């Protein structure tokens, strides 16, 4: 089972493996001991890998037909939709794939929040994940600019203008980003270049993310450290492979529904109007997956502070392992945290909703309260909760809650009462 004593059976395999231990790696990946109680929320890691590969493959194909020029981009997209063989399919997979990617990443992140997967010894996995998430947002934003529709143009204008909030050098930075004095062809070509680059950076980071995961191994719904390999684990192949495969297929059914029957429902109608610098759309809204952060941005009256708040909302996640002071990982054994967790979920959904609404009146008030609560959750509630919360007894092994009634449960309770 252990990686070190693996030796290929064939002579050729041994010869090769001594020089480049790819077979050892493959053996490690198939035998990788995985907690056997992982629920379906854990399948989204595999789903996300699928999303990334899908975006890269469809994106490469689109790039063969797309023309990154302000005068031709919109037309080339229509060319893809009409005249390229199955171009409509490839583009709709790519466009909806971005939404599916974010849907999966949000579930993945909130799974981590619920089961405390970011806690020691998995902080590096978590931080790599946050960097991946940031790059995903950058890639998605720049990708949305490429069709050169009205929302592309004005979204790019609004977001790049955020940099002008930086004191003294802000205006200069914006001009530098644009490659001119407004969003125009130079902006489009550089966004295309970066949009093409970032997925490969993400791919590299995903390798590191998985590598860092394979050092301590998976967290699990019970949130306890387990012996590996042991009765608590199963080899990755075939157990997790088939389970991930099953969940992925379910996910693909939802994905296919969007691609084939509602391909434009997640996009904005204005993006089928060619970019026009002279006409500003009535409401400029980003894609749904950026709405919570957009709401935070707009809830602060000062532009610079708004940008700071929006960035902090993301970066605060990077220090989460140190903000959460509780030693217990899984929310299953943290009755209070569990409630605050669901309040946070609701808070983020509310932020997403008001982010789509005009920033005025009641919506603005709600956005402000929700923004304040978001920061309150991470900066006050989590640190305090770790000290105040009375947690439930944690089992000693995974097998125990699965089988139930084992002597371990009593032992765990005893231990818990001793600590108290």
């Amino acid at each position: 089972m252990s990686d070190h004593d693996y030796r290929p059976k064939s002579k050729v395999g041994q010869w090769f493996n001594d020089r480049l231990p790819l077979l050892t790696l493959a053996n490690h990946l198939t035998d990788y001991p995985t907690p056997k109680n992982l629920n379906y929320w854990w399948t989204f890691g595999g789903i996300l890998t699928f999303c990334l590969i899908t975006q890269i493959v469809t994106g490469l194909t689109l790039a063969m037909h797309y023309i990154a020029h302000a005068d031709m981009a919109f037309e080339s997209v229509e060319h893809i939709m009409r005249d390229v063989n199955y171009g409509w399919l490839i583009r709709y997979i790519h466009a909806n794939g971005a939404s599916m990617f974010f849907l999966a990443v949000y579930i993945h992140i909130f799974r981590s929040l619920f089961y405390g997967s970011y806690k020691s010894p998995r902080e590096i996995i978590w931080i790599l994940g946050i960097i991946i998430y940031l790059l995903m947002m950058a890639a998605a934003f720049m990708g949305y600019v490429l069709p050169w529709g009205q929302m592309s143009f004005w979204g790019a204008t609004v977001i790049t203008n955020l940099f002008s909030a930086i004191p003294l050098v802000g205006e200069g930075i914006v001009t530098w980003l644009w490659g001119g004095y407004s969003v125009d062809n130079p902006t489009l070509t550089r966004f295309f270049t970066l949009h093409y680059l970032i997925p490969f950076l993400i791919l590299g980071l995903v390798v590191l993310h998985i590598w860092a995961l394979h050092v301590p191994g998976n967290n699990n719904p019970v949130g306890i450290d387990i012996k590996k390999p042991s009765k608590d684990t199963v080899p990755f192949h075939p157990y997790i492979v088939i389970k991930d495969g099953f969940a992925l297929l379910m996910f693909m059914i939802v994905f296919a529904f969007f691609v084939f029957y509602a391909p434009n429902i997640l996009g904005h109608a204005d993006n089928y109007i060619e970019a026009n610098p002279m006409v500003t759309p009535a409401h400029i809204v980003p894609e749904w997956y950026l709405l919570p952060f957009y709401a935070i941005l707009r809830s602060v009256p000062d532009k610079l502070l708004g940008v700071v708040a929006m960035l902090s909302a993301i970066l605060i996640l990077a220090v989460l392992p140190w903000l959460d002071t509780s030693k217990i990982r899984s929310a299953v054994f943290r009755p209070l945290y569990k409630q605050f967790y669901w309040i946070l979920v609701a808070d983020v959904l509310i932020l997403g909703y008001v982010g789509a609404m005009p920033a005025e009146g009641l919506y603005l008030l709600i956005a402000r309260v929700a923004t304040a609560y978001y920061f309150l959750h991470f900066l006050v509630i989590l640190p305090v909760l770790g000290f105040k919360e009375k947690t439930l007894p944690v089992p000693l092994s995974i097998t125990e809650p699965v089988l139930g009634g084992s002597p371990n449960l009593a032992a765990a309770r005893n231990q818990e009462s001793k600590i108290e």
Partner: protein
Amino acid sequence: MKNLFKLFSIIIIITASNSYSFAAEKVEYLKTDWSFKGIFGKFDRASLQRGYQVYTEVCASCHSMKYLSYRNLAEKGGPEFSIAQAKAIAASFEVTDGPNSDGEMFTRPGKLSDKFVMPYDNVKAAQAANGGAYPPDMSVLVKARGGGVDYIYSLLQGYEEAPNDVSLDDGVYYNKFMYGNKIRMAAPLSDGLVEYGDGTNATVEQMSKDVTTFLMWSAEPHLEARHQMGFKAIVYLIILTVLVYFSMKKIWSRVESEV
């Protein structure tokens, strides 16, 4: 497992019940039964052909359709005119071509490979001829409006006398479905404006429906192929999912754990 089903169904319900744009004003659009909606939705061929007639006889005097070619009219999943009919349609337009060997531009009858001839040479010319308002290109118009086909269908029938408290400038008309109710396009349709070859009564309602169907096709020319492939893909995925589910159950039966 149950949670996963719940989650997926919630996502589908939320998005399916959402309209295209949540920021749009609430107006109740006129409804009609569109043949192209739904899992097996297909275009009504006769309606597409009539819709093309309305477009070319009415709309095309101001609105371009620059992403369409005459060959599209004969393609599968569209109005499906015969090749001969499409050729005749193309030939009825004068197309500027060139330069020839003398360096001169010349005009010739249209061919299947030509794009739809534009009513104006450029945006400025279109604006000059329409009191400053640019009649939008209609190729993807249906997808470029929040309410989609229902919006276009309603707009065409939404002209009425302006209420007393609304004052209209010259060349501005009142339409109850238009954003802000003011529109620069005069009511384009009136009963009997076109004479349908198949004897269908050319009411405003009928023409609105036909031309909107045509616009849906022009915005999504591969809609029928998409629906057909989608059905096959999803049935395939469901069968595969069931098979994988039972394989998974079988494999996991070796360990004392639930899947």
